[in-house]
């Protein structure tokens, strides 16, 4: 599969897909999107790279083991779930919102961090699964 067309395409698509995945993540609160699809799209970016350049080179550009992203994402989600409990004594998973409006992102609240956690978990899980399968193939 190491054709010139695929390599060139993946070079351009990798940053575009990553950017798109972040866009999908931020869009997800009121519109279709969110952490799950965002994570999948981010994983697709690297899977495409692995098809074009081979698994070794993809591992080099990711640098960390994708399995590490799973506990990281879970920790972020967990933090957003217990933040209201720790900060204000409210029941777990109550939405906390930072007052005011931010450019591009909109309002920032604990729901965003929950979704970010989901993003990392899905990203890590799908890369781990696909890398493991293609290593043994």
């Amino acid at each position: 599969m190491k054709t010139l067309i695929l390599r060139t395409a993946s070079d351009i698509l990798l940053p575009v897909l990553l950017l798109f995945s972040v866009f999908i993540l931020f869009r997800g609160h009121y519109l279709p999107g969110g952490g799950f699809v965002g994570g999948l799209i981010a994983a697709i970016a690297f899977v495409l790279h692995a098809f074009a350049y081979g698994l070794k080179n993809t591992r080099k550009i990711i640098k960390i083991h994708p399995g590490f992203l799973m506990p990281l994402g879970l920790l972020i989600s967990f933090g957003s779930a217990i933040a209201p409990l720790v900060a204000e004594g409210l029941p777990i998973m109550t939405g906390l919102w930072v007052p005011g409006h931010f450019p591009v992102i909109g309002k920032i609240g604990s729901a965003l961090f929950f979704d970010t956690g989901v993003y990392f978990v899905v990203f890590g899980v799908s890369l781990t699964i696909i890398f493991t399968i293609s290593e043994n193939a």
Partner: protein
Amino acid sequence: MTENIITYPLVVHLFFSIVLMFFWQKIKVQKILTIVGNFIALGVAIAVFIHIWSNGTQVVNAGNWDAPFGIVFVGDMLSATLLLLTAVSGLAVSIFSIVSVINARLRFGFFSVYHFLLLGLNGAFLTGDIFNLYVWFEIIIISSFVLISIGGEKNQLEGAIKYFTLNFFGSLIFLTALGVIYGLTGSLNMADIANKIKLIDSQVLIDISAVLFLTAFSIKSAVFPLNFWLPASYHTPPSAVSAIFSGLLTKVGVYALIRMMTLIFPQDEFLMNLLIVLSVLTIISGSFGAIIQNNIRKVFSYLIICHIGFMIGGLGVFNVLAISGVLFYLIHDIIVKTNLFLIGGVIYRIKGTTNMKKIGDLYHSFPKLSLLIIIVLFSLVGVPPLSGFWPKISLFLSSYNNENYWYFGALILGSFITLVVVAKIWSEAFWKKQPEFSIRKKKFISFGQLYTLQKWQFITPIAILAIISLYIGFGADHIQTLSLKIAEDIIDPQNYIDAVLKP
């Protein structure tokens, strides 16, 4: 907002399972962390129990959305007791597993998944939302799939497939039942459903959904026609895993049945008769299965089925005395059944097999250990004044007064056969001379070759659980008071409904 305390057990287990994932390859750190985590969980469970005991039912609306629209966590005395028992068995099994489970298994994240399993159990006991209950069941079965198949030995995978298929099917039926009940009442909050189901005219529709729920939970807790997966799979994984499965996983099904039958479908003639019939058949099939087996762990698996029948039948009799008997039996059974499989693990470590025909003479080589084990075995049978005896008084009395003679007879038969089976285990494994042939695997480290610390790690959890069994036996008035209080609480669901919906 002190009622938030009831969600702390969930927070603790989730936190530790995440932290353990960060130490994926460092087994020594994992071992220390899991013990610390389970001690903290036990402390939290005790605090929750005391809080609910002194302040009554506590309700937390997750996300601060009011019931019946948001998901609620409800901690009543029944939940608190089960949380406490989960924490105790969880701690005992974690101590046992750090020495008995081999490193190759631990490297695949055994402890992390173990904490996820305990998270699922705690969540199932706490939730007051029926769809959320389904989600906790999913968390429980997904983590149990990992635990049962971790290591990947041949017979283990065979057991895992049987377990997986049946439990998956059970979840499917549970989901169908959820769809039916949502279609009928338009709500998923258990208290709200309990209110709205009274307004439905068609008894047939209610019975259909009730039978669907009954089928789903019967698969989970191995009630008669759907029980064959349990003895086929519970003897295959490591002893620590089958201990937590036998102590708690089948009991989640019983808990869900108790909750459903008392809260949503109370006093339904058809269901009560059905439960009695099922319990009689369950007791008979479980006890006859136990009597013909020679593998100690398989015998214990069949005894689980037999004693599930005791509890289901008490639920079918349905009065305060019978329900209190069921709850007392549940408390006794969780501790004893967990301990039985730990004992099976120790016997395996000593002899290299759990086949009764191939072992013997345990009493002469390990007299103190044998005395410890006989306490547990006698508690299981219910030799007075040990723990199995007291709940049976309530069950016998209520079934006789209620003229449920079939169930009464099945109880006698079940208790008698349990006695026979325990006598058989005792004479074969402990008194008989060691037979000539004994199978030793390569690289098998027997109990005598372990370090002293490791020996203690094997024995301590058994001793802790045995002491709790003794307390349940000798302090039976405390447990009886507790189970009567719970029974009075849950047999009149109005308190629960008012606590959740705050009229």
